[in-house]
């Protein structure tokens, strides 16, 4: 069994359930090490005493808070643990709320809780089943490694999940965005957009989505390792002009209802692999231009790219008309 990153107890009324806390997610971001350019020398961090220049052991480090004029108050871990709210070793459930009431913006990270011993399996299952039956989450606070966490405990299949939440004052005021336009969309545009949303609706299947950027980083590294040429990604698609909005929506709805994704290219019946250049986005055309080695492609407009690609493409790749 994995090692817990924290152990303590869930406090639920007069019931106390000793539990361990485990990460429920993994970050697959590629972590780079740092080197000095032109060398193979690694960059290292060291915790050194500013005065002596000597490295300091973890056990000899205490925390200090500046209180003005270069004066610091030093505190020991035990002193912080003594004043930690929620008795620091306890996840104190203060209230139960409807799970659907919590705006997803508050969710931070998911952990699992597991009883530390078989003896506590019964109260653990009891809390889990009660929350499943009521669709409620227990709101609790606890302290872990010098930080207080606001959390929501919820049932997750056979286990209890703990979601760390942002505190209300950590959520930014959306007015800072200064979103232009106060009129509500209506009429045909809204009907079309609603139709598109419905046509594109489907079940939530997280396994259908992959981190393609990380995959490209991995490929970049592998290509460099093998000494192969590195290929750059095409430019992003251009935003839809307001005058084209209805037309774009109509075409997207038709594509979605036809079982194709809007980005998919229409294929000519006589030549299945030949794209219709007039329907390609600027980024698709830029990609083709790069494959065809069209000179000056980076400064071309979409129309210029279409013309240049049509001229440079072999006969079999042009639109069948």
């Amino acid at each position, binding site marked *: 069994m*994995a*090692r*817990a*990153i*924290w*152990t303590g107890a869930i406090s639920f009324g007069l019931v106390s359930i000793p539990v361990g806390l485990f*990460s429920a997610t993994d*970050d697959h971001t590629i*972590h780079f*090490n*740092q080197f000095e350019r032109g060398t193979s020398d*690694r960059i*290292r*961090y*060291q*915790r050194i005493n500013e005065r002596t220049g000597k490295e300091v052991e*973890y*056990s*000899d*480090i205490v*925390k200090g808070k500046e209180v003005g004029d270069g004066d610091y108050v030093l505190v*020991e*871990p035990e002193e912080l*643990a003594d004043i930690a709210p929620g008795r620091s070793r306890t996840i104190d459930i203060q209230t139960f709320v409807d799970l659907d009431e919590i705006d997803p913006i508050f969710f931070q990270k998911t952990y699992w809780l597991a009883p530390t011993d078989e003896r506590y399996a019964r109260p653990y299952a009891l809390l889990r089943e009660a929350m499943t039956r009521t669709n409620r989450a227990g709101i609790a606070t606890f302290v*872990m*490694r*010098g*930080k207080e966490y606001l959390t929501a405990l919820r049932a997750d299949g056979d286990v209890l999940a703990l979601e760390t939440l942002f505190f209300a004052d950590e959520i930014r005021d959306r007015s800072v965005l200064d979103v232009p336009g106060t009129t509500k969309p209506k009429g045909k545009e809204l009907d079309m957009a609603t139709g598109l949303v419905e046509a594109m609706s489907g079940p939530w299947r997280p396994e259908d989505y992959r981190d393609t950027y990380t995959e490209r980083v991995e490929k970049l590294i592998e290509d460099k390792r093998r000494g192969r040429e590195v290929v750059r990604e095409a430019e992003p698609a251009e935003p839809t002009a307001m005058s084209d909005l209805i037309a774009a929506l109509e075409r997207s709805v038709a594509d979605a209802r036809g079982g194709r994704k809007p980005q998919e290219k229409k294929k000519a019946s006589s030549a299945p692999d030949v794209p219709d250049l007039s329907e390609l986005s600027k980024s698709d055309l830029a990609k083709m231009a790069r494959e065809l080695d069209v000179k000056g492609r980076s400064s071309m407009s979409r129309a210029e790219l279409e013309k240049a690609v049509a001229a440079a493409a072999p006969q079999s790749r042009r639109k069948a008309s």
Partner: protein
Amino acid sequence: VTPMTCPDCARDAEHCHGTLVRLADGTLECTDVSCLDTGRERHELVVPALPAD
């Protein structure tokens, strides 16, 4: 002087003795080269990386 013992070591909790360095772009690095998980919850010591004077 009372010798300090890491409470997480005493409890056998999974953690790291490195200092988590929070860079300006939001990325996190650990002073412990063997640390593979830069989760805040695994680290007692966290510092922001500040430009040198």
